[in-house]
């Protein structure tokens, strides 16, 4: 059988995107409104409104910068306009220098440097971005091998059907993509508690395994420092009523969506994943933050399982919504891309549904829009660990 191909935008650095956005990015909350007004006026442009960029201590500043740069470097983005205020901690020039390394077009507007204030800055930005759009939107996608795909897997609004059917179906597709030479990113470290030893044993090296165990401990200790016991309180009373008996069982039901292949590496939040196969990223369990981290790390497609029905999308990456809850599949049908409730109802095997899902993944990687894209869902939030100062 011939290998599946996807329709990719091959970027100057060799990375392959499956979408072709112009990204307008604010360095700080103060320039976010300007960024949005610019993006609204140019075809193909999307804004991400950075809620931070100032009043941050160094560790958080690093995370914010890494996330912004990662979003801009993601190959689903063809060109970038950085919108700064001028006096903020994250300077536009610093971001521009990093993003330029990809070879894609990058421009900047700094509000305090433009004569006339924000209306003039918006005008300048629109002019720069329209010029860039002519070039970027002229690029045509090419037939490329599926191994170029980087897929993030996520779950949110989980219920009993998530661990029972939706996540195993996604796990089947994850294994299939890894076997074809692609990349899968699994995240949400706090949801690995109890399963960290199992994951560590699947790591390709002792070093990677140790990183997994250390990261899980870090989250347990962080919660404990606020007087919260992450281990003893799991599974929750609701989980127990739904049939989950132990924290290991709950965590396994979540991590199964990454499939069963060896774990090649473990990266920090929003850090670039530089290899093929299955990787783990250290993110919170907060689903939107986790999706943003994986996209900043290079995910060009996300598969998101939901029991209750989470509508979320991403500014630059298609998010495929999967549910195995028959009621959600019906009630939230306009938001759901893939109905895996056939598995819950005993009408289809995990393997059969997994094959169907894999076909949809290829379709989306060939340009088919997801429901979140069609409905305009573009949530963006960045992980932070310290209060603002």
């Amino acid at each position, binding site marked *: 059988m011939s290998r599946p191909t996807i329709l990719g935008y091959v970027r100057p650095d060799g990375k392959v995107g499956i979408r072709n956005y112009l990204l307008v990015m604010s360095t700080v909350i103060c320039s976010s409104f300007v960024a949005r007004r610019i993006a609204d006026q140019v075809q193909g442009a999307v804004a991400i409104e950075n809620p931070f960029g100032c009043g941050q201590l160094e560790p958080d500043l690093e995370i914010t910068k890494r996330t912004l740069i990662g979003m801009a470097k993601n190959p689903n983005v063809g060109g970038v306009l950085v919108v700064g205020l001028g006096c903020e901690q994250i300077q536009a020039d610093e971001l521009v220098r990093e993003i330029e390394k990809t070879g894609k077009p990058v421009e900047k507007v700094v509000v305090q440097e433009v004569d006339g204030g924000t209306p003039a800055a918006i005008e300048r930005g629109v002019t720069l971005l329209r010029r860039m759009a002519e070039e970027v939107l002229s690029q045509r996608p090419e037939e490329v091998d599926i191994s170029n795909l980087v897929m993030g897997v996520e779950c949110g609004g989980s219920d009993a059907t998530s661990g029972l059917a939706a996540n195993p179906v996604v*796990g089947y597709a994850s294994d299939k993509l890894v076997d074809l030479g692609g990349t899968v990113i699994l995240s949400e470290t706090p949801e690995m508690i109890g399963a960290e030893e199992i994951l560590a044993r699947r790591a390709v090296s002792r070093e990677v395994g140790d990183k997994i165990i250390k990261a899980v401990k870090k989250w347990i200790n962080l919660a404990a420092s606020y007087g919260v016991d992450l281990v003893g309180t799991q599974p929750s009373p609701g989980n127990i009523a739904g049939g989950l008996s132990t924290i*290991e069982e709950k965590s396994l039901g979540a991590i199964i969506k990454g499939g069963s292949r060896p774990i090649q590496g473990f990266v920090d939040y929003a850090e670039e994943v530089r290899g093929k196969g299955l990787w783990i990223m250290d993110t919170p369990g907060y689903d939107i933050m986790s999706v943003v981290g994986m996209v900043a790390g290079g995910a060009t497609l996300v598969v998101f399982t939901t029991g209750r029905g989470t509508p979320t999308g991403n500014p630059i990456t298609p998010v495929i919504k999967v549910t195995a809850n028959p009621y959600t599949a019906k009630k939230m049908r306009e938001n759901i891309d893939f109905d895996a409730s056939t598995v*819950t109802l005993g009408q289809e095997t995990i393997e059969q549904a997994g094959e169907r899902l894999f076909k949809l993944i290829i379709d989306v990687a060939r340009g088919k829009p997801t429901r979140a894209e069609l409905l305009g869902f573009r949530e963006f939030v960045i992980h932070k660990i310290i209060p603002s100062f």
Partner: protein
Amino acid sequence: MGVESLQERYAIMLSSDDNVAVALKDLKAGEIVELVIGNSKLVVKLLDDIPFGHKFAIRDIHMCDYVIKYGHVIGRAKRDIKVGEHVHVHNVESLTAVYSVCRGGKP
């Protein structure tokens, strides 16, 4: 995943290595459930009511033996569990349990 599932209408096994299966609907004690594992079939007579999403044993599990789901250890049996019995918090403990029956009730 390696799950060549294993499927009948009323219950699912998440891996062929598992010693529990999960109910896909509310099942009653006395009902007979058939599971397909590869080319062979396993017939289990339920000893308890098993609500949707809950587990039942598909093999006898001895006290302090591992309970396996997704092909991995999800806990230990706190007492002997017979084929067809409900497997849940009353007879399973986490390996992270502070007071473990299998460690002599000690931390």
